[in-house]
């Protein structure tokens, strides 16, 4: 499996980027971006997640199956959130309370 071993340089670069992104997300939180604050925060978190998964968890080198499993987890999380919020966000829209 030696072909899958990344260099120390790669790992260090990823590590430094991760630290930088932590700094950025903290700093950006103090800037008024309205509704975009959440979007930016989650976007940075997602980038960090991808960096950790792709490099530290070797997902770049793993099988399609493993990648599919990881994608499946997030698809299911999305399903759970989307359908529950579909209820929460449309309550009362017909103009009747509790409907």
């Amino acid at each position: 499996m030696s072909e899958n071993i990344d260099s120390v340089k790669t790992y260090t670069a990823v590590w430094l980027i991760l630290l930088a992104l932590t700094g950025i997300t903290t700093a950006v939180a103090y800037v008024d971006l309205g509704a975009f604050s959440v979007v930016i925060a989650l976007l940075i978190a997602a980038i960090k997640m991808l960096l950790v998964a792709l490099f530290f968890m070797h997902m770049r080198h793993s099988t399609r199956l493993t990648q599919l499993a990881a994608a499946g987890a997030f698809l299911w999380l999305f399903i759970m959130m989307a359908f529950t919020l579909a209820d929460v966000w449309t309550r009362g829209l017909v103009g009747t309370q509790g409907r």
Partner: protein
Amino acid sequence: MKLPLFPESASNFAPDVDHLLYYLVGVSVFFIVLIFALIFYFAIRYRRRSDTELPKPIHASLALEIAWSVIPFGLTMIMFAWGANIFFKESRPPENAMQVYVVAKQWMWKLQHMEGQREINELHIPVGRPVKLVMTSEDAIHSFFVPAFRTKQDVVPGRYSTTWFTATKPGKYHLFCAEYCGTKHSGMTGWIYAMEPQDYQAWLSGGRAFGSLAENGEKLFQDLACGNCHKADGSGRCPSLAGLFGRSVQLADGRTITADEAYLRESILRPDAKIVAGFQPLMPTFQGQVTEEGVLELIEYIKSLAPPPGVGGGTTPAEINVNPGAATPAPTNP
């Protein structure tokens, strides 16, 4: 002993649901008979005659697979649309419906008429007139279920839920709690008395009157000294409540909401949830000081307050910042 096998049909919804039942049963019986008959026929016709018998495999036919996927799917879409149609009807009470408040608690139903009649585990209603129930619970979740009317609605603590029906046949019908709520869940039952309109009028006038809901609410309003701040002319530290109900209200955080029962209830129990633009969050909470019934009386009183003189019905009073352009739908319940 009498053996009834079908519930009485006594509301505007009952025939709708029954007709849907006939369709569902018809489709089901067709498929059940088909499957059972095929299994019986094949099993006997092709029974094993020798131990070394080896039938030829038969390969699937795409046309057949598509046919028996699509045709049943079409039949189920009718079920969906039909059921959805009834459900929409059940979700939209007519404007002219007579309103009754329901407070459920372990293990009784408390019902209050606008005119002030209070009932426990009994509800008298006139035939032929839509009745809208606005319900809440003081403890666990309950469910208001009248089989003869084919209606059911959960009654959830912390929010209002609504259901409605028009009784079509005078009589005495079961009221059940259908959501399990503890020890005496099966005892949380009652009766709905559907009466001819003239009988209902007689019952109303003959019954014990406690004063109308709005009158009781006014008394409560004075007892709690709400008027010290909520002055009718708008000179108090808090917004005037005159003509508030049904109007849109501009909030401090920029949202605009419609003042419905849920908003009024929330503002009494959790006053800081939604602050009216231009006012300070001064009001103390009345959680624990006012019962759910008291809240309903206060709401009725607020509803009865006419807009202040000089301001046309439903137009903008000075105290409350109304943004007519940004009328958004009612907020989600907490």
